């Protein structure tokens, strides 16, 4: 009873916030609806017993990616009505795309009605006594080790590439050298002098 209720609650919220992401006029509102969609998707993950993935979704997507996304969108000054003005010329590809998605949905429904998939048994097929994290870790570091490491390498290369592309050594700045500042002693900075009357300090 309560599982069904929570499932429909999360599922409805995901769909509603997904629709609102597209429908809202303000881009910042769109991003916030998107974040709500992520969050509710995490709720669905918890419901099927994948709590590690759920929290990873919240930490990575909601906590980091969406924050940066929001950060950028908040600072943009976009006139969305102008962007939308030319959208009607894309009507043919978009209708085709929508029809393809509709056909896929229909196929999925037909296949589901044919029965025998037993999705509930497959969603999180971890043994009852192993925790989610342990099961995932064992798979990642044995069967999928090379793919896992390769994915890490790809991300590393992408990160270094982004830094290399955007970084430029500027000559006109005078950055603070904190180690120099910490190393500086009072006797380097202060000179005690006793100038005679009528004379200034000579340095």
């Amino acid at each position, binding site marked *: 009873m309560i599982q069904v209720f929570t499932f429909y609650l999360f599922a409805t919220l995901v769909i509603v916030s997904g629709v609102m992401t597209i429908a809202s006029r303000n881009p910042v509102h769109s991003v916030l609806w998107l974040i709500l969609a992520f969050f509710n998707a995490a709720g669905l993950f918890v419901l099927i017993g994948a709590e590690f993935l759920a929290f990873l979704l919240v930490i990575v997507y909601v*906590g980091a990616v969406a924050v940066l996304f929001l*950060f950028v969108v*908040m600072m943009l000054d976009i006139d969305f009505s102008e962007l939308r003005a030319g959208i009607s010329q894309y009507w043919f590809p978009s209708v085709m795309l929508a029809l393809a998605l509709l056909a896929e949905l229909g196929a999925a429904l037909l296949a589901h009605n044919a029965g025998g998939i037993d999705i509930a048994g497959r969603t999180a097929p971890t043994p009852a006594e192993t925790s*989610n994290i342990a099961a995932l870790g064992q798979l990642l570091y044995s069967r999928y080790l090379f793919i896992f490491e390769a994915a890490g390498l790809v991300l590393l290369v992408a990160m270094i590439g982004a830094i290399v592309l955007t970084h430029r050594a500027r000559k006109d700045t005078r950055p603070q050298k904190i180690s120099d500042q910490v190393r500086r002693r009072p006797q380097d900075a202060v000179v005690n002098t006793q100038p005679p009357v009528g004379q200034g300090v000579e340095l």
Partner: protein
Amino acid sequence: MTAFFQSWLGFGWGWFVANLILILLIALPLMLAVAMIIYADRKIWAAMALRRGPNVVGPFGLLQSFADGLKVFLKETIVPSSANRALFLIAPVITFTVALIAWAVIPFGPGMVLADINVGLLYLLAVSSLGVYGIIIAGWASNSKYPFYSALRAAAQMVSYEVSIGFVLIPVVLWAGTFSLSGIVGAQQGHIFGLVNGFGFNPLLFPLAVIFLISAMAETARAPFDLTEAESELVAGYQTEYSSMSFALFWLGEYGNVLLMCGMNAVLFWGGWLPPLDIPILYDFLFNASITGMFWFFAKILFFFFVFSWVKATVPRFRYDQLMRLGWKIFLPISLIWVFLVSGYLMLQKQGMLPW
């Protein structure tokens, strides 16, 4: 307690009522604690500045926070006419809620935890990463320059320090072998020579405890990292346009988060509800084991809160580039190296390749 209510009301409703009562048992004392901790903060800060601090309302000024609360409660909530109304009002609610829900997984004593989930630490990370939304939304929805600057600063600051906090937590998790907070506390029992409780006393983990304490200050935007509300630059930061209860919710949420971070310091590195030394008498010298556990946990929280106040009173505010430098160029490499060190040590230990 759940079993008691379930025998009365059936399985579902009994669980619901029992959990509702437990939630209130955590949330209401927490609000009271926040009120008293604000008073303590002001008193400590005043003492270090050779002032008296609040001393008028009630004995020793103890009721000062409640007087302030009553004052903001009775004031009118003003929504700026150009603000984004719905988001403007929802932002303090987010901050406050997020500060409260994190306490669900904190173990207060032996077995005294509302939700003993096996990914408790990830839950805390997820919740603390949600905390930034209250500030960003507040800053943007105010439709005003200073709150917006503050929101941008808060976003960058919290994301940066979450990275180093994440890396600091990995060695702790590796050593404890679990993500469950009760498990982490349990793993610290007799950690050093079977006598001293707490990962923080381990020389390999102590530097991480220090990094975590500093990162916790940055994560909660406490002084010296309170650049989100730097009054000399940004008026009052993201709170500038807020008044009455919406302001108070920010205030409560902020101190709730500070208490939570003190609690996390205690749980992760200093043994949580365990006494400092693994001596049987220290486990139940007050009435019973649960109350003694709570005593030790609260004592540790209060100690760390004193450290927070102490730092706030004595350390000048960082500049923004210094803050970023500390997070990305110092904490991140150190914690990354430490992940490597600790996992290497644990691997050698597991293979029996250590010389001792």
